[in-house]
């Protein structure tokens, strides 16, 4: 059975989680993908305050569909994490702890995860409809002009995830032979 985890992630929880472990995550996370990453790094470079505190946060690489009437949000599966690799080590240094996405990460990202004791979690790619049912609340936080790429604060309940890179840098995508 997957381990149920309720945020915030403590250093102890992070260090206990091992690559390949299935978890069900509950709590608050933020969406950010390509355009939001680019903008966040530009803001950091310009010493402008970010729309949300990065320290200890969880970022979900996702651009949801609009919410149909009566629903909290539309389909919301993970996008390819590799496109964020160019920005991620910087954000980890600024305090970002946990990322949710799909697919391999670069060696630079994995070593930043190891150095700063973070985690990379994978959501099942292509399961956007199922994942949308885990979102109990969605609030637009920043970059409204980016549309689906805006930053949303999500309240998730029992979101099914797999530990893809653990805090020791073990990588699920490197295990296959």
């Amino acid at each position, binding site marked *: 059975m997957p381990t149920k985890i309720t945020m915030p992630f403590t250093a102890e929880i992070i260090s206990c989680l091992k690559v390949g472990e299935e978890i069900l995550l509950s709590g608050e996370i933020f969406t950010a993908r390509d355009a939001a990453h680019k903008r966040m790094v530009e803001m950091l470079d310009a010493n402008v305050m970010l729309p949300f505190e990065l320290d200890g946060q969880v970022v979900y690489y996702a651009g949801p569909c*609009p919410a149909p009437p009566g629903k909290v949000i539309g389909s919301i599966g993970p996008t390819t994490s590799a496109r964020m690799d160019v920005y991620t080590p910087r954000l980890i240094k600024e305090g970002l702890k946990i990322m949710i996405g*799909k697919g391999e990460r670069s060696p630079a990202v994995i070593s930043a995860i190891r150095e700063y004791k973070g985690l990379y979690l994978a959501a099942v790619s292509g399961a956007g409809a199922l994942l949308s049912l885990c979102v109990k609340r969605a609030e637009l936080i920043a970059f409204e002009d980016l549309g689906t790429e805006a930053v949303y604060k999500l309240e998730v309940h029992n979101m099914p995830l797999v530990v893809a890179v653990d805090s020791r840098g073990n990588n699920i995508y490197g295990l296959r032979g």
Partner: protein
Amino acid sequence: MRIIEEARITDAVEKLCIEANICIGHDIKEALIKAKTCESLPLARSVLDTLSENAEIAQREKLPVCQDTGMTVVFVSLGTKVHINGNINDAINEGVRRGYKNGYFRNSVVGDPITRKNTGDNTPAVIHYDFAEGDSIKITVMPKGFGSENMSAVKMLSPSDGLSGAESFIIETVLKAGANPCPPIIVGVGIGGTMEKAALLSKQALLRDVGSVNSEPFWAEFEARLLEKINALGIGPAGYGGITTALAAHVLTYPTHIAGLPVAVNIGCHATRHKTKQLTIDN
């Protein structure tokens, strides 16, 4: 000459966009269930279950199976005895516009590849036309997600590279794609023609039913071998490891030049969405 009003084309494209994004094909649903019986790794089985459950939820809740509702690829086969009252390009794009709005789908198209401003309605579609005998129009809508599209590739091989060269290129492409295209994938392969012809064939190859066998024994055998080698890569469902990296490998070929051997690989995700409708004068 038969006349078809452009409004009928718009209506058909709207419905096809909605249906294709919400309901994945029976062939794929069955292949996912069958794949689970072959997997022994718990994580691989769990992913395949999740994907089957996701397909059910999408259909029940009328949600798109994936948030990447794609760039809309439309194949149109025009009967030579048909006349369309109006502009067919505009009619198709209007259908896409309505389908994505009324389906509550994501608009994923930017107007310029460098300045990247979202067009706000998922248009324009990428439309491919061809002609057929008869008095009907066949329209296929294929919403193509870019997790898988980005991992696709074309290579101009030399004739001396032969079938084994083509095979190596296909396997390398799938290996390089790894977990990104949302495996288990469908591998569409186009061999021959010119560069763009091979690419188009590789996309059309994705439209074939999963589980169907190539009508030419030589290529049927190649497809079977390809699938076996791809599944031996160990990428597995969602890339967590396992023996189901692909559900199918489909090959389409075309005559080519004495100096060339173009090979294209178009990767389709686990959902590889597409729906078809035939418009005739009577329906």
